């Protein structure tokens, strides 16, 4: 048995207006993790979709265990032992966890599904994988992170020879990520070949046996374990050098105006007595484990979900917010953690998406929209954020995940809110672009805007936030100044489930 599992060469793929892949190649061995990196829109997902039978390739060949194969449908890929965790979630929200995992492969007697066997099988799988989920729970009741875990469980349930993971951790926090890494170790040991895509450099360092780099749809090179060095990789990816790991300058914020004051926010199911202040020119980080309630705080503040007993002051004045439109009218914008469901009009073009929140600015009093002015604005943002798109009239659905994220960011930048709540703003964004976004956030606060940044990446939280609010179990367990904060400290507060609270 040779060690080579998969050999891919000469793959090209073009979409209308885009050459997504040009003559790409790579090899995958048994029992190794091959990390695939590249900027947003480099073609990583497209390549994986070709391997999993979702896209058809224009040219090139795929050799699996020494034989050339044609993969023309997801089913064919499954049959060949290729399994994928999609970058964008692909679950049936109205079905349960177990039903989702085994869709198409239900244990049955004749035409009847054996429900008990199904749930039992799912329980076994989840236990084996160390994932804490009730197989009978409906997907729609799960958070994004838990949904991601279901995706992972589903992909692993195939006992595939080749397992593709397209940014599996983008919605996960440390603890789940840890679980996943343990699983990966186990799979490696049993000979599975894993293709791993991520924009998180620390993961890459930890996991990779080899790294293959793509840029602009072309194959750049492959590094063996011994040669893996992050700055080198980043340079291969983006073609220039990037500084990492800075911390914000300490700032004397205590005397600045409080622009947003939240007091006594409760929600029926989770949040208990949330109170905090946001000052002008401040980036206030929100850290916590999955399900700590950070997203729920944001949604409650902007009136997307109902809350109880909340007092909100903006610029010192009490306001009542029961709809997101009222929040925006008060200058509070919210960038959702889930761009596909809550952020984008996928079927509309980039221009429409960028202008969505600020359309009124381009509208005269008779309701007519000044199209030209709007388009100029969105072209500016496409340029400023380096959104990779054939034009502002391209359908947003066809952009790569990271570029879609940039479109959502552009939408809020265009709205020019004084207070911005960014929920996982860099989810799925490449290192280079991340730096740009960090720079952008810093510029915004320098202009006097204030930002709440919810992030599950602790380095990011530490890198940007002037102060850090830590949540656990629907409560605020601590507020730290950046100077006093460290990953360990944050984790400590994030796991405090009691009600002791420090200010």
């Amino acid at each position, binding site marked *: 048995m040779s060690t080579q599992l998969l050999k891919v060469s000469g793959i090209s793929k073009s979409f209308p207006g885009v050459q997504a892949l040009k003559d790409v190649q790579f090899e995958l061995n048994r029992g190794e993790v091959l990390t695939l990196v590249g900027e947003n829109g480099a073609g990583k997902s497209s390549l994986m979709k070709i391997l999993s*039978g*979702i*896209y*058809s390739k224009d040219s090139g060949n795929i050799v699996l265990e020494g034989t050339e194969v044609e993969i*023309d*449908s*997801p*089913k064919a890929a*499954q049959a060949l032992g290729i399994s994928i965790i*999609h970058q964008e*979630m*692909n*679950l*049936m*929200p*109205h*079905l*349960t966890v177990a*039903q989702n995992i085994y*869709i*198409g*492969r*239900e244990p*049955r007697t004749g*035409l*009847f*599904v054996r*429900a008990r066997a199904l749930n039992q099988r799912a329980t076994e799988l989840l236990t084996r994988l160390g994932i804490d989920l*009730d197989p*009978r*729970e*409906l*997907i*729609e*009741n*799960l*958070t*994004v992170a838990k*949904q991601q875990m279901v995706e992972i469980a589903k992909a692993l349930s195939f006992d595939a020879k080749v397992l593709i993971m397209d940014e599996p951790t983008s919605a996960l926090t440390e603890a789940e990520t840890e679980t996943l890494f343990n699983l990966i170790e186990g799979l490696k040991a049993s000979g599975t070949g894993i293709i791993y895509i991520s924009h998180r450099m620390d993961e890459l360092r930890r996991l990779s046996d080899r790294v293959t780099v793509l840029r602009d749809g072309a194959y750049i090179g492959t590094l063996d374990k011994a040669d893996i060095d992050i700055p080198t990789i980043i340079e291969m990816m983006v073609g220039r050098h990037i500084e990492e790991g800075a911390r914000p300058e300490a700032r004397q914020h205590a005397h600045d105006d409080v622009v947003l004051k939240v007091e006594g926010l409760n929600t*029926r*199911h989770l949040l208990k007595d949330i109170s905090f202040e946001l000052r002008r020119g401040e980036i206030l980080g929100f850290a916590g484990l999955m399900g700590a309630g950070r997203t*729920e705080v944001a*949604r409650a503040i902007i009136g*997307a*979900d*109902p809350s109880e007993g909340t007092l909100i002051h903006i610029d010192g004045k009490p306001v009542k917010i029961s709809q997101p439109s009222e929040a925006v009218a008060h200058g509070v914008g919210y960038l959702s953690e*889930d761009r*596909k*469901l*809550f952020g984008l009009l*996928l*079927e509309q073009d980039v221009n429409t998406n960028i202008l969505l929140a600020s359309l009124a600015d381009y509208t005269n009093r008779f309701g007519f929209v000044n199209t030209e002015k709007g388009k100029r604005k969105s072209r500016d943002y496409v340029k400023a954020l380096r959104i990779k798109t054939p034009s502002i009239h391209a359908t947003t*659905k066809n952009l790569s995940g990271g570029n879609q994220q940039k479109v959502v960011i552009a939408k809020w930048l265009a709205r020019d809110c004084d207070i911005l709540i960014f929920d996982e703003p860099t989810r799925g964004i490449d290192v280079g672009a991340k730096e740009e976004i960090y720079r952008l956030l810093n510029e915004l606060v320098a202009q006097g805007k204030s930002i709440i940044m919810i992030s599950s990446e602790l380095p990011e939280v530490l890198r940007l936030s002037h102060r850090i609010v830590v949540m656990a179990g629907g409560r605020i367990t601590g507020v730290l100044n950046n100077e006093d904060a460290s990953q360990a400290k944050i984790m400590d507060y994030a796991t405090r489930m009691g009600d002791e609270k420090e200010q």
Partner: protein
Amino acid sequence: MNATPVTEKSPLRKPDGRTAGSTRSFLRAKLQQSLAFATLVVLLAFFSLANDAFFTWSNISGILLSTAVIGILALGTTFVIITGGIDLSIGTGMTLASVMTGIFLVNMQLPLVVGVLGGIATGALMGFINGFNIAVLRLPPFIATLAMMLIAQGLALVISGVRPIYFSSVQGFRDIALGTFIPGLPNAVLILFLLAAVAYLVLSKTILGRYTFAIGSNEEATRLSGVDTRKWKIMIYTVAGLFTGIAGVVIASRLNSAQPQLGAGYELQAIAAVIIGGTSLLGGRGSIMGTLIGALIMSVLINGLRIMSIQTEWQNVVVGAVILVAVFTDALRQRRAGS
């Protein structure tokens, strides 16, 4: 291979946030049914008090009988609606099936069983064609079945020669709907309940039912999971067609004739019953029990208004208003549960 546009109709999360555990959602499903059920009970109580003639066995069995046809159509279309589709051809399709039954039994003098199966098969065939048009040719369900509705309507007229076909000569045909296998209960009602039981089993216990929900929930994800959604969609529309065919036989038997002009408008009534029963037009959600209750609400309401001698022109106003209230209660419940 191609990139099918993913329709964003069924967000993974409801807009108003997430809800608690599976017990909650289980209770919720029960609650929904019991709310529709409560509406039904309120209506029954109201009409019983308002008029003595209402709560008599004769009238109740009359109500059940009048639920039979719409109910059978609604059962079949529940599957289609759960996939996120719609079937507008069930009304006139039923008519075409009844006309074909007439052709088989009266004109061609085939044996009873053969003729009846032929009528049912006509329905299934129409369903199959709908499924093909929708799943393979990818026509929007609304328009594909609208076209089929027109075609079936025309064909029913053409094939029958624009006149009713009478089954007087066919021994035993009338008993299909009006015989009383269970004394006092017309067979049509029995057929309705049996079909409801079958539909319940199919929807909740079989692979077909599972894929019906899966497709309605996220068709693209289902397809990417290796399920042959085309095949299953064709199957689901064929099932709806089967029910349409059965409804055609039942109505023909009840009227002892195939009335080629009947049927237009039945589809809206059946769809209304399904939706009142809590099935979502967005797909992914629904139940057979709900549909049955929805159909009963409609026929109890109409019968009650008739028994109370409410003027015909007012009846529609009241039915419309009750539908609004019934569905509003449901919307309210959902909002409560969601917050």
